[in-house]
């Protein structure tokens, strides 16, 4: 840059100095933002001292040129501005203007708006687009630009005289509207009234909105206390204790119906046996037989069956319960089996989540099992997954919807229902059997029904195999994981589940599954929810291989528990 680049015009400089004689803080800030330009602008040291004064305004003028992009920077850099944007149409005049808020009137010239760029309404006024003579010296160009910039605010301050009348009208519309006193009073009064109403609502909310603090139904409400039976047991056990030195008398235990949790099992009662040493389980069975638990009954467990190679046999035995779990290969499919003999019917129990009918909770069967001290537990009907069938729990009838399901079936009688009685027996009602709510309650009272399971169909009834062609639950005719529970003898039960195994997917129809249950010699058998739901939980852990390799949250389980109180186990 040579000195000739600055053709100093003294008058211009003085005029400029006068313009800037009143310090303007924003401009001072700008000068700081462009420090590099200042020495360059004051470079011509030759001029006299009074001429050097205008160097500062020159630097000030140089700074805004550099600062102009910085002005745009915050918006350019804002994430919202990074999106592909095209030129905005001239919409400003039609823009909605909130009352009471003064928006600057900005009419954007579409010719200045380039795709992807902000319109430079402030830094590039309309006049800037004028053509400049090419041969004009650089210094003159700068001065001309300076003048234009100085003139620009004045132009903006004074609206374009050529602006259409619409602009004025729009500006008038944008001007703050002053509400009348009456209107303001009205709004104030309205606010006051609704504020009082709001406070009332708030107070009501505090008193009434408290979700999940109480349950809708107490499922234990109808459980029988049966104090006489408990007293009898107590007297009998006292006798047994008193005569224990003379003779062995098997004690009688039961779990109170209303008890939410069963006694914890004795850890010493558990055992695991390798499938190569399956005969060892016979010793446990013999022990149960000797204690009178088996009541002379045979067992289903056969140490000579084909066990699944990657499995073991687990058992639990005390004076009130014998449980054996094993995995057997049937037709090449892995079936997980559980045989249970209990001393008292109260040891066969059902647990629903939250102990509340209709609870939305879905908990893993293993967690439910642990929460009730079950020795062994299995899935039931997953009653919250579907809303048909008959649902009874703790002697109370909860669900029996007689609305039409499909065809001639009603929701309550479209499936077979299994009722478990106070004696531990299975009773079935069949599809299309008509009953009213009252008749069903009477049926439950007559048969001492504790709870029901609604899935089905019935697989075996009175030692007869039942086959089924159509059923609304369980996709019975397709190959699928299956689960079922059956009764082998008095207080003697068998549960089997066919699941996927790492080697082979489960592929049995319900009728195939029913035949295998029948082959076990059961009196009664009933199909439970299959698929990923079918699960055996032994000692708090899943025993079978569950489909997809993970437990699924369910709403209920059936479980077997020991009846020996923890106090006696400690003794």
């Amino acid at each position, binding site marked *: 840059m040579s000195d000739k680049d600055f053709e100093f015009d003294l008058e211009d400089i003085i005029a400029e100095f006068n313009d800037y004689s009143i310090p303007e803080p*924003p401009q001072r800030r700008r000068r700081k933002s462009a420090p590099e330009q200042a020495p360059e602008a004051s470079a011509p040291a030759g001029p006299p001292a009074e001429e050097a004064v205008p160097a500062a305004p020159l630097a000030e003028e140089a700074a805004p040129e550099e600062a102009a992009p910085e002005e745009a920077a915050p918006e350019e850099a804002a994430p*919202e501005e*990074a*999106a*592909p944007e*095209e030129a*905005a*149409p001239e919409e*400003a005049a039609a*823009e*909605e203007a*909130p*009352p*009471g*808020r003064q928006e*600057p009137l900005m009419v*954007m010239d579409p010719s200045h708006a380039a795709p992807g760029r*902000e*319109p430079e309404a*402030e830094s590039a006024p309309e006049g800037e687009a004028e053509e400049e003579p090419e041969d004009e010296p650089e210094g003159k160009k700068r001065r001309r630009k300076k003048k234009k910039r100085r003139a620009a605010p004045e132009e*903006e301050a004074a609206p374009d005289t050529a602006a259409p009348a619409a602009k004025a009208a729009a500006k008038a519309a944008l001007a703050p509207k002053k*509400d009348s006193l009456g209107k303001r009073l009205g*709004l104030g009064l*309205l606010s006051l009234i*609704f504020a009082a109403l*709001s406070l009332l*609502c*708030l*107070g009501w*909310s*505090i*008193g009434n909105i*408290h979700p*999940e*603090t*109480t349950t*809708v139904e107490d499922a234990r409400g109808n459980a029988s206390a049966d104090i006489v039976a408990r007293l009898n047991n107590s007297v009998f056990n006292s006798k047994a204790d008193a005569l224990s030195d003379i003779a062995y008398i098997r004690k009688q235990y039961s779990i109170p119906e209303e008890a*939410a*949790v069963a006694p*914890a099992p004795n850890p010493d009662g558990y055992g695991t046996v390798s499938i190569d040493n399956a005969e060892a389980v016979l010793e446990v069975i013999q022990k149960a037989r000797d204690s009178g638990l088996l009541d002379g009954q045979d067992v289903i467990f056969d140490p000579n069956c084909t066990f699944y190679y990657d499995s073991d046999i687990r058992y639990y035995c005390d004076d009130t319960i014998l449980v054996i779990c094993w995995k057997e290969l049937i037709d090449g499919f892995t079936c997980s089996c559980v045989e249970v003999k209990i001393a008292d019917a109260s040891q066969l129990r059902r647990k629903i989540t939250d*102990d509340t*009918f*209709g*609870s*939305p909770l*879905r*908990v*893993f069967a293993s*967690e439910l099992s*642990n*929460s*009730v001290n079950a020795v062994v537990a299995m899935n039931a009907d997953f009653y919250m*997954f*579907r*809303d048909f069938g008959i649902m009874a729990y703790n002697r109370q009838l909860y*669900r029996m919807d007689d609305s039409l399901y499909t065809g001639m079936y009603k929701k309550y009688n479209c499936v077979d229902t299994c009722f478990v009685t106070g004696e531990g027996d299975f009773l079935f009602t069949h599809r299309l059997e008509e009953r009213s709510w009252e008749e069903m309650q009477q049926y439950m009272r007559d048969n001492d029904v504790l709870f029901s399971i609604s899935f089905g169909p019935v697989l075996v009834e009175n030692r007869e195999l039942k086959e089924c062609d159509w059923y609304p639950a369980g996709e019975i005719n397709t190959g699928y994981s299956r689960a079922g529970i059956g009764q082998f003898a008095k207080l003697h039960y068998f549960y089997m589940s066919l699941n996927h195994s790492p080697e082979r997917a489960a592929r049995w129809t319900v009728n195939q599954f029913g035949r295998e249950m029948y082959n076990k010699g059961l009196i009664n058998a009933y199909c439970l929810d299959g698929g990923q739901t079918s699960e055996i939980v032994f000692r708090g852990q899943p025993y079978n291989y569950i489909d*997809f*390799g*993970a437990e*699924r949250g369910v709403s209920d389980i059936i479980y077997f528990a020991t009846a020996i109180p923890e106090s006696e186990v400690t003794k």
Partner: protein
Amino acid sequence: MNPIAIYTGEITIYWSGILIGIAIAACLSLTLALYPMSGRHNAAVWVMFPFALFFSVVFARAIYWYCHIEQYASIRDALLDYSTGSFCIPGVIIGTWLGALVARMLNVTDSAGRLLDAAAPGMALCIALIRLSALFNNSCRSHIIISEKIFQHLPVAVAFTDSAGNVNYRFATFFVEFLLMLLVTVLLLVFYCDHRDDRLRGGNRGGNVARRFLLYYGAVEIIMDSTRYDSHLFHFTLIKSLNPYASFISVGQVFAAATILGVLIHYLHVSVKARGWKWYHVALLLVYIGTLLGVGYWGEYKVQRTGMYARCYIIQSVSLLVMVWVVSVLYRSCRAKRKRRRA
């Protein structure tokens, strides 16, 4: 902790009720503070509030009744007796929206969208505090068991004692949601201060903050609802054949997904209307469909089936973030240029 705060024989006040009262008051206060920033009179907020509260309670309860229809003799019982049962948050959003509409119909505001914009941060704060109240009523339920001792405390886990007296630690779903909704509140406040005057091309200015709230709320709710074991699930009374397929789908998640989809459709519509179909519209839609697969199949379905929480929830979270990004980009593409304000 005892859930009852005050018991006087006839009156029982629960801690959760107090927390919810504070939540509602906080929502109201924040709305009252924000609404005048748009140059409008607070009368609209006062008028909206009782209606919004009324509709919120009714809808939140009605949705709960629909999900647990067997617990009540009729919908009348569910709506009149609040001593038992629970509520569904989606009803609060519907209720607030209706409250704003009523205020608009009564002509106390010129824009229901502007009113909802001012209410959006308050609603996020309200939901955050409602979730916090779950710590006081033992309903902070997650099916994720936290077995690592180092994580067995807030904010990750909360102790849960089962009926047999076993203590296990579960993921503190509601507490984490409380924290996330607090974050959403802050984001919405910033968005409200910076962008409340944003105008869409060919559209009005109002409603963008409210849409942003729906977007963030939807993203948070989808993943947090997935971790709950007491989700409110669909069931159909008319088309019963759908029940076997719908009985594991959460109403909260579907509502949340619908809010995100609704916001996406709105911005897509405005953007296409203003610019016509562009390549990036198609690209964004394809990305959105991809995120749907991530959220729905690789996230939700897989986590229900396989229980692989870490993997599935990471996929779901990333998909949801991308989903939010897609909607945000669409929003930017249809936003009219902001004019620089003069000093």
